[in-house]
């Protein structure tokens, strides 16, 4: 027991903020693995058991991890792998092959990738194989070590599993699952997918070789759990260099999650999506506002971040249109009201616009047809209107039928916010029938 006083480290505030940013950014942006995955204990145990049986006892297995986007599937798998590799035998023997449906779009590419990840390129050399199955069998055979009777266990992780089901004949899936069923080599096939109906995508022969073991990540946190999650994500760990600063920071986080306006904002986010990824995006926006001048996350930050997340993108685009383009949109809205959503073309829109100009005698917006055509084409490039069919060939441009991709309420809301909107145009928009 040392009687020496432990020197309390006090870093300057700038240095503290830098450290905070670094730690939290790795947590929020780089998907750092938590020590224990929250709310997924049963799934964690189940998967760990399964993989341990393959790695240590040499049993073949296949399992699918299913859950919506941002539910934590990859995170769960990585946590399980980390815990699995703490065991010495698993660490010594287990080989891992990570495939991703987005990258390996073809079975041929996938096979090359498997060869590469098993470090067997030299062994394969220039051999030509008759079929996929032969190739795979050769690879697994080559993994047999000297005196062992069976080859080393291999873990195949297939990310975006549903994309593999779209390959020709589903050869890769068939062969992997075949190996996992037969006694060739201890193989574990773990598929990760966001589609709940993934089994429907598999062919009959593939489905029958699959063990139908699925781990569902359909966690349903309650709002207090969600708030607790927010708090943990923002809190600094105990080993932060400046203990005093960390204490102040964690105290401010605690007041944040108890503040009424912040709770309202978080409730709104919770109601729209419960996955941790959208929470991370929100917290990242708050974190970006932390600086030396303001070394804590305040409720105002949360409000501002929420406003950014929920802003309507189309309304923002409507805000930047010129007055002529806005008039054309209002004319289209009137056409939609009168003709109940039937498609229109430029001539009809121009006609409607001319009716408005005739009522008001000002000639300020009296533009020629080509100028109006240019404005119309700009709206088409912004994809606010869309042609009905893409047969652009035999129809003149001004007669091509289009649909408006905006809602009535979006237009009216945009009009309210439009800068210096002329009053006669506003009144024209509000009138029921032109």
């Amino acid at each position: 027991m040392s009687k020496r006083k432990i020197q309390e480290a006090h870093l300057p505030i700038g240095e503290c903020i830098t450290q905070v940013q670094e730690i939290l950014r790795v947590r929020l942006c780089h998907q750092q693995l938590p020590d224990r995955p929250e709310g997924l204990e049963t799934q964690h145990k189940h998967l760990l058991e399964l993989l341990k049986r393959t790695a240590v006892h040499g049993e073949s297995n296949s399992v699918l991890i299913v859950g919506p986007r941002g539910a934590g599937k990859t995170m769960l798998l990585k946590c399980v792998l980390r815990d699995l590799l703490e065991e010495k035998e698993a660490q010594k023997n287990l080989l891992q092959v990570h495939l991703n449906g987005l990258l390996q779009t073809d079975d041929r590419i996938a096979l090359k990738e498997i060869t590469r990840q098993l470090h067997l390129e030299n062994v394969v050399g220039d051999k030509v194989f008759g079929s996929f199955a032969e190739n795979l069998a050769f690879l697994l055979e080559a993994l047999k070590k000297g005196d062992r009777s069976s080859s080393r266990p291999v873990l195949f992780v297939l990310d975006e599993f549903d994309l593999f089901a779209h390959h020709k004949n589903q050869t890769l899936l068939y062969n992997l699952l075949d190996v996992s069923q037969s006694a060739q080599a201890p193989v574990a096939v773990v598929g990760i997918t966001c589609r709940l109906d993934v089994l429907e995508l598999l062919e009959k022969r593939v489905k029958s070789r699959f063990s139908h073991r699925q781990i569902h990540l359909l966690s349903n946190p309650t709002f207090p759990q969600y708030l607790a999650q927010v708090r943990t994500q923002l809190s600094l760990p105990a080993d932060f260099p400046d203990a005093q600063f960390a204490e102040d920071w964690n105290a401010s986080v605690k007041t944040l999650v108890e503040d009424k306006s912040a709770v309202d904002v978080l409730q709104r986010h919770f109601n729209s999506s419960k996955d941790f990824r959208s929470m991370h995006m929100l917290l990242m926006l708050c974190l970006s506002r932390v600086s030396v001048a303001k070394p804590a996350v305040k409720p105002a930050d949360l409000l501002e971040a929420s406003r950014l997340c929920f802003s309507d993108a189309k309304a923002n685009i409507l805000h930047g249109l010129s007055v002529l383009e806005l008039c054309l949109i209002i004319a289209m809205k009137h056409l939609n009201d009168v003709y109940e959503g039937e498609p229109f073309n430029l001539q009809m829109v121009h006609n409607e616009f001319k009716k408005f100009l005739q009522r008001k005698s000002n000639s300020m917006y009296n533009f020629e047809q080509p100028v109006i055509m240019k404005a119309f084409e700009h709206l088409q490039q912004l994809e606010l209107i869309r042609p009905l069919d893409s047969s652009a060939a035999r129809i003149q441009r001004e007669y091509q039928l289009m649909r408006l991709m905006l809602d009535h309420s979006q237009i009216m809301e945009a009009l309210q916010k439009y800068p210096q909107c002329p009053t006669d145009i506003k009144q024209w928009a509000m009138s029921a029938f032109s």
Partner: protein
Amino acid sequence: MAALLQHPGYEEERLQRVAEQLPCREVQTGMLLSLMGQPHHYSYPSIFIYGHRASGKSHVMHVLLKELELPHATVSCVECVSVALLFEQVLLSFFGCDAASLLPRSASLSDFVRIYRQQCSQSPAKQTRYIVMEKAELLRDTDANLLPALLRLQELVEDNVTIILLSEIVWDKFRPNTGCFEPLLLHFPDYSKGELQKILSQDRPPSYSDEFYSSYINILLGVFYSVCRDLRELRHLAALNFSKFCEPLEEGKVKETDTHKLWRNIEPHLKKAMQTVYLREVSSVQWEQMQQMEEKENGALRGLSAHTHVELPYYSKFLLIAAYLASYNPARTDKRFFLKHHGKIKKTNFLKKNEKTSNHLLGPKPFPLDRLLAIFYSVVDSRVAPTASIFSQISSLVTLQLLTQVSHDDQLDAPKYKCAVSMDFICAISRTVNFEIVKYLYDFL
């Protein structure tokens, strides 16, 4: 003003230079800087920046990345007809040409990720690497796996890399149907009228005063602002028309402060510019030449669409008129218009009650060759024999794109056509042959 941009991790004078080059975009630059964080920190894997054209998205990104000397790769998706070009560009910018040459012939995304991982294990990122993709809406038309993979590139290559997508189109139209990693959305709002004035005034040629130039910009915005808010177009128009604006000043007729006279001089000129240069009917070179020529010598400025007014032979004109009548009159009304003795036709049956839109709004309808010839013979005043020369004139009208052929090339005995000319054009033609076309049109009864 320039001192508003402050961030630890970047030198203050560099930030000041950045702020000077980005007027009216301080808020967005500050937001981007705070998201980027210090160079060695991680940033959000993908950021999506959307806003109108010429709202400064690419400009802000370029200035920031260049002045702060951050490792970056800028790719324009218009140039990347094949994805291999995209991969090559990225590897070249980050790791040099040796890495880029490691890419196989027709590189796939798998090869790219593999080579990237190899390279970054040799040279890991000390600062965040940025990949900026302009015109990102074209990524939707490439392979379906490219966009989702790029959005999670940080996770796939396990490196400190951030993808920034710039586009005009909102994110809702990008989302793949099974979902993807959602990027952080950032909006670059359009410039207000005051901001446009401020930015356009920066183009002032040094020999003129500030107030003079800003009065010019005021007049220009007064004419064009309600039609076009695109900064690039407005800058182009401002540059083209300034010499005309200064003309009375140079001739000594007016002083700098005489805004009313200057306005009277330039306003018709700007209105004409709207119909020609703005629509790209004439090129900028032609426009400048026209300005330099004397007013008396100045003939009519031939725009692009003037070239469609060809001189047609006599019978071709009548064929075209007949085609127009066949396209825009319904077939049941031919009897009333073109027969000498059509008998009694009740007007109530004739004008259908629930016709809401005139044919001129819906567009031309296709008609068979026989109908065209029938109308032609009744419209032409002299007796015409059906020789090959008449039929060949129909084909040449199709070549001139005044008629379009609707039926397939195989159908030789019953070809169908549509008339592709506008009302003004056909009125001009019928005036030259003294034919009153309006009397024969159903919509104008």
